């Protein structure tokens, strides 16, 4: 790869690259995203390689492993360009058929395309699949287009065009001005206007400033940032260089959790490529601007996603948040002005500058512009990554894109914003998803987790789980968060074990009040959301646990009771054989009985009985 010596050199290189590529050349893109990789995308790609060679197509057909294609529920995904035929659930056995039918014969393999469950129609092309139809991706746009390990691929789709524009035709103030006008708000959860933050930092005195990319995505079930870092690392890097130029930083860090080894590997490769090419280092593209990037790996603490804790971690101290002010933009990393933005925020920057702030601001709502990536998971049919304009309703995301709930179960709640988000009930399904609307119903945007729950979820148990998670991850620095979460965890254990009292709910509300107002950082302040939202919208479930000692969703084991209906029981003794503690007794061919003293409520008898004689309540 050559070092770019001038702008003309870059133009020339890009021109040659474009000339050498035929957009009509058949391309097989195997999804290598977080969902498909464990399902065997590497093996599928290998099978394609063999099958293409067998047919003498190697060289004629391009084979790539790309980033996440979104519809993780249907992995391994394979996209055939230029027709954009989207195959799903592809295994190595399907590969010869795809090569034979589609790449040689030009036909579609019907059994491997998405079938609309509502109409029964086959959706062969990506654009016809309802999951993709409602999306308008900006951040994820290049994920099923480029090979994340190839800088040439990124350049061929217009990569580093923004960098060139910024370095040679814009002043730092103009860059900040454009970001401000775009209305971009931090995608990590806080939703602070990005441009304003940059301006504060730009105006801070000091020769040395830092840029940080927060890639410490730790929410259970969230993988937006991972998909972007793994699938389009150069977009993050380009965004960071632009940001560095805007505020006058010369050094940057990408903080990635070490549980994301592939993201680390790809980012490292991308940084090396960018440096070799002259996009990073001294005098970038022969301009007067110098900037370089380092990767810093997190050691597995959720709280290090909090900006001040993250910076303490980079400095080598314990990952504990510190009180603000001073804000990072004034005194951040090593006490120097620092801009810290989330992966998705950085990935938005190149396109904003490239296509203009007006274009960006045209999408979204009044106070939340652009698009947002969500990881749609839980009891929904089409789990995966979606990117929709801000203001899209929950119903559109869950039912139109997500294809509704598993097995047609009724919808119960959706939790947005990761473990410290609130659980939003059915009555708010028409809610437009943006920063402020979510806050109004007691939840948060967070970094974009979206967990859908059906009627098999017990909301008390759900809150118990998230409080347990947050308790384990709270750094323990400040009293309200440390002791508050400890007490909340205890209270949830009491309630779900049948020892709850109505006074416990008052205690919970008091704790929430103190934690939300007096904790140092966002973890403690927002940890109350799952508690408050479930107390508000699902209070009857708490009351059932406490007053009736019953779990309406039949989830909390200590509150369940198994009995045998003497009318239905045939006395086959199947349950007696399964019961691990010998709690079931009776005469053969006659009704059996469960000794409640011995029963451990494991539910094996309930699952074993073929006559539905075991009653669970």
């Amino acid at each position, binding site marked *: 790869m050559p070092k770019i010596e001038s702008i003309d050199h870059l133009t020339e290189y890009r021109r040659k690259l474009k000339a050498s590529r035929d957009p009509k050349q058949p391309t097989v893109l195997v999804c290598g995203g977080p969902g498909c990789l464990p399902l065997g995308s590497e093996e599928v790609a290998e099978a394609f390689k063999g099958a293409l060679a067998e047919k003498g197509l190697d060289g004629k057909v391009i084979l790539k492993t790309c980033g996440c294609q979104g519809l993780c529920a249907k992995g391994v995904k394979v996209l055939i360009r230029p027709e954009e035929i989207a195959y799903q659930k592809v295994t190595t056995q399907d590969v010869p058929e795809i090569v034979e039918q589609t790449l040689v014969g030009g036909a579609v393999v019907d059994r491997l395309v998405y079938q609309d469950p509502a109409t029964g129609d086959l959706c062969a092309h990506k654009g016809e699949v309802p999951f993709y139809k409602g999306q308008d991706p900006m951040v994820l746009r290049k994920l099923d287009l480029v090979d994340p390990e190839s800088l040439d691929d990124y350049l061929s789709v217009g990569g580093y065009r923004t960098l060139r524009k910024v370095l040679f035709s814009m002043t730092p103030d103009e860059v900040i001005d454009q970001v401000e006008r775009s209305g971009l708000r931090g995608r990590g959860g806080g939703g602070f206007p990005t441009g304003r933050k940059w301006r504060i930092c730009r105006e801070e005195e000091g020769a040395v400033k830092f840029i940080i990319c927060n890639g410490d995505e730790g929410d259970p079930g969230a993988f937006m940032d991972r998909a972007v870092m793994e699938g389009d690392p150069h977009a993050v890097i380009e965004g960071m260089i632009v940001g560095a130029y805007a505020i006058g930083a010369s050094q940057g860090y990408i903080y990635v959790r070490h549980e994301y080894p592939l993201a680390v590997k790809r980012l490292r490769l991308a940084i090396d490529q960018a440096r070799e090419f002259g996009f990073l280092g001294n005098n970038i593209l022969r301009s007067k601007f110098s900037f370089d990037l380092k990767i810093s790996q997190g050691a597995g603490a959720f709280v290090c996603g909090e900006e001040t804790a993250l910076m303490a971690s980079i400095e080598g101290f314990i990952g504990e948040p510190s*009180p603000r002010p001073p804000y990072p933009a004034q005194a951040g990393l*090593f*006490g120097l002005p620092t801009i810290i933005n989330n992966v998705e925020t950085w990935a938005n920057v190149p396109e904003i500058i490239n296509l203009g702030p007006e274009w960006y601001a045209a999408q979204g709502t009044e106070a939340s512009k652009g698009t947002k990536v969500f990881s749609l998971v839980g009891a929904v049919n089409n789990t995966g990554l979606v990117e929709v304009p801000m203001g899209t309703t929950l119903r559109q995301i869950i039912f139109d894109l997500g294809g509704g709930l598993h097995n047609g179960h009724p919808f119960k709640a959706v939790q947005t914003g990761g473990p410290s988000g609130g659980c939003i009930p059915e009555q708010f399904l028409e809610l437009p998803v943006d920063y402020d609307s979510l806050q109004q119903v007691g939840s948060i945007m967070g970094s974009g987790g979206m967990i859908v729950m059906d009627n098999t979820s017990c909301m008390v148990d759900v809150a118990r789980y998230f409080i347990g998670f947050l308790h*384990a991850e*709270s750094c*323990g620095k400040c009293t309200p968060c440390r002791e508050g*979460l400890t007490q909340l965890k205890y*209270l949830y254990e009491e309630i779900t074990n049948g020892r709850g009292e109505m006074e416990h709910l008052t205690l919970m509300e*008091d704790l929430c009040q103190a934690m939300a107002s007096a904790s*140092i950082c966002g973890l403690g302040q927002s940890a109350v959301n799952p508690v408050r939202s479930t107390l508000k919208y699902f209070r009857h479930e708490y009351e059932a646990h406490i007053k009736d000692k019953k779990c309406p969703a039949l989830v909390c084991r200590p509150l369940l009771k198994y009995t045998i209906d003497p009318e239905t029981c045939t006395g086959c003794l199947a349950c007696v054989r399964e019961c691990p503690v010998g709690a079931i007794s009776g005469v053969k061919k006659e009704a059996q009985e469960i000794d409640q003293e011995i029963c451990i409520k494991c539910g094996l008898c309930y699952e074993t009985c073929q006559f539905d004689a075991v009653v669970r309540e």
Partner: protein
Amino acid sequence: MPFQKLADQVKAPTIEEVGIYINGIFVRAPQEFTVLQAARANGFEIPTLCYHRDLPSEGHCRLCVVEIGEAPRTRLVNSCTYPVEKGLKVQTHSDKVMQARRIVLELLMARAPAAELIKELAAEHGIHETRFHIDDPQERCILCGLCVRTCKEIVGVSAISMANRTPEKQVATPFKEASEACIGCGSCAFICPTNVIPYTEKDGVRTIWGRNFELQACKVCGNYIEPKAQLEHWAQLTGDPVETFFVCRDCR
């Protein structure tokens, strides 16, 4: 944070004063003061646990919270770290503040039921027992971090630190083993507001943090001065031979 201090030094020191309102009363305070300093200098009492004037404030205990801003946009901040700024409106005893302080005290009572200081402070706030679950009735540590900060900032050896997160949070030596860095000075035990750091002295040996330190006897009167390790630390700091410190303060 040493880097912070470096960055601070770059800026020229100022003696400018700013005016703020505490409980509606206008007061002046030097610009570099925190809200707590400004309040105390003007006779407004704010309770604290983890604050010490000779140590950097980190805002652990959250007892010193005050309400700032104007309704309806007010929020709680810890006064020990929040800097005064022109026209800032501070409430030291508003309903919101008192509610948070009471819960904090109740929580600390549940955490450290044997800590006398907490009982006294709670009683001052009208709390005589906690509604929360007590795990260990003998516990006294409130995790204020004064010991850790003293060891780092005053003694300069960082032999102890906060270890683990919320479920197992504690003050400990590295890997809970006898620490090589400890000089046995006992400053941590001295600063502890709830007397939770145990140490013993017997037959010229001080035992603290799982290590025995031989005490140096005064060359003149024969009374024990300090652990040898501490005197060696002093010698290292000053560049004087260690024997310089073998005479106690009374005999010098």
